[in-house]
C-alpha cells in the first residue's frame, strides 16, 4: 500500500514550502519519526518527520522546488517491509540546515607593469592630486590601479585607524573631508567635529527583526480592514502593578473570543481555519525591536498563569530566544500604549491576525479609548460591533471581574 507524504503546514501563515534537501533516497527504508527531508518556509528551515514506517518509493518534488501546502511530495510504500536492518543513523551535523551550496571560485589578479589604471581611477587620482605612476613604481598602488585602490590609499594616508573605523558609520563624501583637512592626518576628534559641524547623518543598520516586521506590515496593511473606535469604562477592572491592565485585558478578551469563532480564525483562500482556543498576541517592545509573542489557550488559563507567561515571553524576547512556536498561532493582538499617556491610537494588523486592539490611557474616571482594527475578510462589521459590545459589557460585569480577581490570590 502506498502512503502519500504531502507538504505539511508548519505555521498558520505558511502557504508554500521548499524542499531544501532530501535526507533519504528512493528505495531507502524510513522509520516512523525519522527525519526524511528539510523544508524551508518563511525563512526558517524545518525537519519533516515521517509519520509511518516504510520504504521511500518515489520522490515527487525535487530539491530546490517549492510547492503549496498539501501537495504530495513523496510516496511511501507501507506494509511488512523486510529490511535486514535499518541503516545506521546519520551523524548529527548532517541534519543541520545548509545554506544553498555556493560554487567555489578561483581568482587571478591581473598584474601589469606600472602605468596602467582604469579610466575612473585616473579621474580620481587627478581629483586628489595623486601621481599614479610614481605611486605604482613605489608599489603603493597596484597596476592596473582601480578606484578602490586609490580610495584605500587616501584613507590610509589621511586618517588614523580609529578615525577610519568611525568613518564607516557616516555617509560622508571623501572629497569634502579632504577639502577641509588638505594636509593633516585626520583623527577621531577632528572627524567627530567635522560630522557635527556639517550635520552629517549616521548610518543606522536595520535589524533582522525590524526587516521581518517591515515585510509583514507591508503585506498586511493593504488588506481590507476597518476600525471601530470606542470608549470603554474600565473603572471596575482592579489592575495594579502586579496584575497590569494588559494582563487583565488578555484574559477578558481571550474569554470573549470564545463566543466569536471568527476572532479565532485564520484566513485561507477558500475557507477559514478556526482554532478552538483563544490565542492572544501581545505587542511587546524590547529595546528598539517590536515582537508579537502569543499566549495560547487564554480561555483555559488564570490571570496568574497569564502573568507568568507574559513574563517568561518577555524574558525570552529580551534574550532573543523567542521560538517560531512562541510567535505563531495567534489570531488577535493587544497593543497597549496607555502607560505612555497616549489617549487613543490605531494599529496595523500583524500579518495573519484578524484583529488588533489598541488600548489608550485610562483616565481618572476609568474611561479608556480603545481602537479595534479588523480584517474585513474574516470579521464583518456586525460581528466586529457585537464583539466590542460584548467586551464593553464584560468589563462592567461585577460577578465576572470578581471571579477573575479570585484567581489572582495564591
Amino acid at each position, binding site marked *: 500500500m502506498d502512503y502519500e507524504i504531502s507538504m505539511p503546514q508548519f505555521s498558520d501563515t505558511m502557504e508554500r514550502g521548499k524542499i531544501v534537501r532530501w535526507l533519504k533516497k528512493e528505495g531507502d527504508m524510513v522509520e516512523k519519526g525519522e527525519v526524511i527531508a528539510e523544508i524551508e518556509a518563511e525563512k526558517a528551515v524545518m525537519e519533516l518527520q515521517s509519520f509511518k514506517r516504510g520504504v521511500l518509493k518515489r520522490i515527487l518534488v525535487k530539491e530546490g522546488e517549492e510547492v503549496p501546502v498539501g501537495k504530495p511530495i513523496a510516496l511511501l510504500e507501507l506494509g511488512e517491509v523486510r529490511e535486514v536492518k535499518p541503516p545506521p543513523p546519520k551523524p548529527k551535523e548532517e541534519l543541520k540546515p545548509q545554506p544553498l551550496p555556493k*560554487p567555489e*571560485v578561483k*581568482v587571478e*589578479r591581473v598584474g601589469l607593469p606600472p602605468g596602467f589604471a*582604469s579610466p*575612473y*581611477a585616473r*579621474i580620481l587620482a587627478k581629483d586628489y592630486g595623486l601621481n599614479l605612476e610614481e605611486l605604482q613604481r613605489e608599489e603603493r598602488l597596484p597596476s592596473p590601479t582601480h*578606484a578602490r585602490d586609490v580610495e584605500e590609499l587616501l584613507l590610509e594616508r589621511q586618517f588614523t585607524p580609529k578615525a577610519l573605523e568611525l568613518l564607516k558609520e557616516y555617509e560622508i563624501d571623501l572629497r569634502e573631508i579632504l577639502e577641509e583637512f588638505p594636509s593633516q592626518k585626520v583623527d577621531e576628534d577632528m572627524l567627530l567635529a567635522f560630522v557635527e559641524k556639517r550635520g552629517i547623518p549616521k548610518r543606522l543598520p536595520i535589524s533582522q527583526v525590524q526587516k521581518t516586521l517591515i515585510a509583514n506590515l507591508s503585506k498586511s496593511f493593504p488588506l481590507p480592514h476597518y476600525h471601530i473606535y470606542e470608549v470603554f469604562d474600565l473603572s471596575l477592572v482592579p489592575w495594579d502593578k502586579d496584575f497590569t491592565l494588559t494582563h487583565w485585558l488578555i484574559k477578558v478578551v481571550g474569554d470573549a473570543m470564545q463566543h466569536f469563532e471568527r476572532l479565532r480564525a485564520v484566513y485561507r483562500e477558500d475557507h477559514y481555519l478556526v482554532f478552538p482556543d483563544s490565542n492572544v498576541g501581545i505587542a511587546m517592545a524590547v529595546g528598539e525591536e517590536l515582537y508579537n509573542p502569543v499566549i495560547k489557550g487564554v480561555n483555559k488559563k488564570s490571570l496568574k498563569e497569564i502573568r507568568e507567561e507574559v513574563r517568561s515571553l518577555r524574558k525570552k524576547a529580551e534574550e532573543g530566544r523567542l521560538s517560531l512556536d512562541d510567535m505563531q498561532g495567534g489570531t488577535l493582538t493587544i497593543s497597549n500604549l496607555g502607560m505612555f499617556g497616549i489617549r487613543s491610537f490605531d494599529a496595523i494588523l500583524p500579518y495573519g491576525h484578524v484583529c488588533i486592539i489598541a488600548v489608550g490611557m485610562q483616565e481618572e474616571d476609568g474611561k479608556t479609548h480603545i481602537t479595534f482594527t479588523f480584517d474585513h475578510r474574516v470579521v464583518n462589521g456586525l460581528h466586529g460591533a457585537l464583539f466590542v459590545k460584548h467586551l464593553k459589557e464584560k468589563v462592567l460585569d461585577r460577578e465576572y471581574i470578581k471571579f477573575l480577581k479570585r484567581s489572582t490570590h495564591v
Partner: protein
Amino acid sequence: MLYRDALNLALDHAMEQDPRVLLLGEDVGFYGGNYKVTDGLYVKYGPKRVIDTPIAENSIVGTAIGMAMMGLRPVAEIMTANFAMLAMDQVVNQMAKLRYMSGGKIFLPLVVRMPQGVAKQLAAQHSQSLEHLFASVPGLYVFCASDSTSAYHGLLYAIKLDDPVIFLEHVLLYGVDFPLENSKDFNPFQARVLKEGKDITVVSYLKMVHDVLKACQWLEEEGLYCEVIDLVSLRPIDFETIYSSVKKTKRLVVVYEAPKSFGLGAEVSARVCEELFYFLDAPPLRIAGGEVPIPYNRRLELLAIPTPERIYSQILSWSKSHGL
C-alpha cells in the same frame, strides 16, 4: 499569479475593453494555446475573435498585418521564436516598414507574441533566444516580460500601442508564480531597477533576471552589492536608467541567454563605453550563452547557457581581478 495566467488576463482584459482586439495563431483557439496562454478565450469570445490558423507563420503575421491595416488590433501568437524565422519576411519587410513607407498613413496596431529560450531538452531547433534579430530592426518595438507584472502590464500596453510590437516571453517562466503588482502607470520603455546596489550594475532581461537575482545573494555574502536592472523593452533600450546606475557603480555586467556574440550585451556595453568611458573602473563583462546550437543532452544544455552558479562565479572572479 502564474506568468501564463497574467498573459491570459491581459489578453482577456484587452478583448473585453476593445472589440477590435482579436487573437490568431496555431492552436490558440480550441486547444487554448500550446503553452495555455489563450486558454478559455475561445469559449468566451468565439471563433471570430480567437482564430486557429494553419501551420504557416508567414501567413499568420501577414494576415495580422492586413487586419491591423484595416483597423483591427490583432495579437498573433507564434508558437515559439524558432518558428518565427519563417515569418521574417513579413516581420522585417512589412511589419517594420509599412508605417515609414506609407509616409505615416498606415498604422499597425499589431502585437506578435512568442516564447523563446532554453526549456529542458527541446534541442537546438526549439531552444533558441533570438531577441537580437528583432531588436536590430528599426520600425519594431521589442518588449519582453520577466515576471507576471511585466507580462500583464507590458502586454496590455503593447496591445494599446498604435505601432507593431514583438512581444517576447520565456518558455520556462509560464508556470512560475509571481506577484502581480498593481502598477497603473507601468511604462515598458522604462527599465526596472529590481534591486539597488552600490558596486556593480547588472543588466538582464527575461528568465536570466531571476538567475542574476539568485547569484546576487551569494555575491552579497562576498560583500559585493549588485544593482539589478530588468530591461522591459529591448528596442528601444532605456539607456538612461543604465547610465545613471553605471555612473554610480562604475561597473557593468550584461547577462543574457543568447550566444555572446552580436547580442544585446554587445549593444549595451558598447553604448556604455561610448557614453561613460571615463566613469568605468573595469571593462564591461558579458555573461551569455555559448557559441553553439543548444545541445539536447541536459548536462551540455546547461553548459551552453548561464546558470546562477556561473553568473556568480564569473562576476566574482571578474570583479576580483578588476580591483574590487
